[in-house]
């Protein structure tokens, strides 16, 4: 893919990021940060792509560490966000089903 196409994707993704996030209430800032934190664990893909073609002990070692790091980021990030959000969700039980608050 050529650079300009990639830059176009980059800029559009930036605008989507701005739009999606700008309306999150303060209350959810921690889970939001922790959730986006998990998403940048996507770097693990870089390690997965490179480790096959990579040659030499050092390259393999560095990429294995990178994959381990990326996995910690992804798995830990999503799990911890889920735990946090579970606490917010618990409040649902207080709202009787069918009441106007139960959205």
């Amino acid at each position: 893919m050529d650079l300009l196409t990639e830059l176009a994707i980059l800029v559009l993704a930036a605008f989507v990021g701005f739009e999606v996030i700008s309306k999150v209430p303060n209350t959810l800032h921690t889970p939001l940060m922790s959730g986006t934190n998990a998403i940048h664990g996507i770097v693990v893909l870089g390690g997965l792509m490179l480790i096959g073609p990579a040659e030499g002990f050092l390259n393999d070692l560095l990429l294995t560490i990178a994959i381990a790091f990326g996995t910690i980021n992804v798995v830990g990030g999503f799990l911890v966000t889920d735990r946090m959000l579970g606490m917010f969700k618990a409040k649902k039980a207080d709202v009787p089903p069918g009441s106007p608050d139960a959205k």
Partner: protein
Amino acid sequence: MTRTDVIQLLYIVAFVLFITGLRMLRGPRTAVRGNQIAAVGMAIAVGATLAQPGVGDWVLIVVGVAIGTAIGVPAARSVHMTAMPQMVALFNGVGGGAVALISVVEFRSETDIPLDTLIPILLAAIIGSISFWGSNIAFLKLQELMKRAIRTPRVVNGALLGIAIVLAVIIAAGSESELLFWLILASAGALGVLAVTPIGGADMPVVISTLNAFTGLSAAAAGIALDNTALIVAGMLVGASGSILTKQMAEAMNRSILNVFFAGVGAGGAALPAGEGGGTARATSAADVAIQLSYARLVVIVPGYGMAVAQAQRAVADLAKELEKRGVEVLFAIHPVAGRMPGHMNVLLAEADVPYEKLKEMDDINPEFARTDVALVIGANDVTNPAARSVKDSPIYGMPILDVDKAASVIVLKRSMSSGFAGIDNPLFYDPKTAMLFGDAKASVSDILSEVQAL
């Protein structure tokens, strides 16, 4: 359709899931599902990547994933909610570290790299390294393994950034020296360490959020280098959302991001040394506080970092419930930068089962203070400091605060008379309608609770 086309299509499915998931994080009722949807998107992106032609060395992949899972899962499962900021810092740091390592391997394994690949590699290396080392320092500070540190002169930080950029230009100009590349990582890493080291407590929300954005940006840069759209899109989504969050945090403190990193209130320009404001603070007892609270109509609780440190959130929630049983209306006033990460107080109170609707944001609660009988400040200081409104030369002048001093009476729970993170005296403590209850926040709240129950 070729295999590559299918992989690209799966990546597009993953983007849709990421964006949908992030959108659902806007409301507490949809957020759990949103996070799960984003996780599914990630699983699809990983699966698609593994199906790419040329992916190999399965043993090492399995080893890497196994190590990562063995560390990440127990850490995420067992971390206390009060320790959440350092956990996020750590997860963020390893992400940045992964980017930096990937960029090293890319540089090492190819020769004659074209500029449109080389420049993103260099950017990913620099930003990833700053993020890795900066996040680790943030972790050490939040974990209180590292207390104080010297603020390096701005020139040094500037010079380190300069060195990294100059070396990057030399490599871009054609040098294939691996040593130079490692030096770039080292100088960027040193910059990350030195930039975060002097930043303390109250500025941490801005720091963590900035580093989060950095890791996202570095992932996007790595994506351009690798021609991988999933990395570009996901990295940039995080880069953009992290930047927005950083800006909101900084605005909530009425400071610029540069000001946080280069002229922190905590270490640098604190004007008034604590105690100089003068006046005497009035101490009170748990029994008196209990009486005041029980006969109030509206009590507003203002939690701060002190509540997190003392792990007092459950005691506070119990006290609120007990008061409500007695017909007292109880609300919580949450300043956007209370605690050590954005939304820190909300997470702790949610953990203690305080209903979401009772947590009021600053703009919603400030008009309510005029009809508030008792404002109960628990381990919060600077975010309630009226000096931010009136004292022009105060370092926090102009910072939006919770108008606690508008309440009919104020009770401040505090360990001692020491000043807050910003090192500024708080005139609120000397206000005639303010009473201080000294001691550990958890012990104090429990004492108040048992006094209320005894009434």
